[in-house]
């Protein structure tokens, strides 16, 4: 991915985050089917933008003194097990 594409992906992500925050605020202000639909749409767009950004994120060389943590997702299993108990 070139620098231009990286910057575009970053912009798409920032726009998606701002749109989601606005949709979230609108939903809190007035919870109705319209704001819910807009919220869900903005959330899905943000999820897609995040996935794109994370998949193509360049490994930034950390400056001396920086630290970057990349934790794994905390996983939990809430489902009932199949079969005889």
């Amino acid at each position, binding site marked *: 991915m070139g620098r231009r594409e990286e910057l575009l992906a970053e912009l798409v992500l920032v726009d998606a985050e701002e749109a989601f925050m606005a949709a979230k605020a609108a939903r809190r202000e007035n919870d109705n089917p319209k704001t819910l639909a807009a919220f869900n749409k903005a959330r899905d767009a943000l*999820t897609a933008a995040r996935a794109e950004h994370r998949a193509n994120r360049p490994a930034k060389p950390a400056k001396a*003194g920086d*630290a970057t943590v990349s934790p794994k997702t*905390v996983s*939990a*299993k809430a489902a009932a097990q199949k079969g005889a108990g």
Partner: protein
Amino acid sequence: MAITVSGLLFPTWRDILDTSQIAIDLDLDTHKIALFNNSITPNYSTDTAYGAAPYNANEVSGTGWSAGGVVVTGTAVDESPTGSLRWDATDVSQATTTLVAARGGLIYADALADQGIVFIDFDADYSTTAGTFAIVWASTGIFAIDLTP
């Protein structure tokens, strides 16, 4: 005494679902992440909140990162993969920090009595010197609860 694994804080999740009905809103953008060193030992069956043991000592703070931590923004709950509840947020990036040996982070509800939500094991000590402390969440989110049968 050590951090060996990440986990969801059971008392909080019980109280969300039972008679207590505590109002943890994962869409809020006021939850915080506080850092701790490897001298604490989380107990996911009994740990309750930031400021209560073991999260009442051994906190990592310093220049650019106050005790109590920083806000986690851009929080979103969705389904991913199918049948799993995923919680995600904007990556944390705090510039110009000087921190020593952060080994894990507690995300807690700053707006709801500091109720603990999830503790994340960093698997190693991370320090900064007038640098950026960043947490890059996995594409699969901060946590995921698999609800599939």
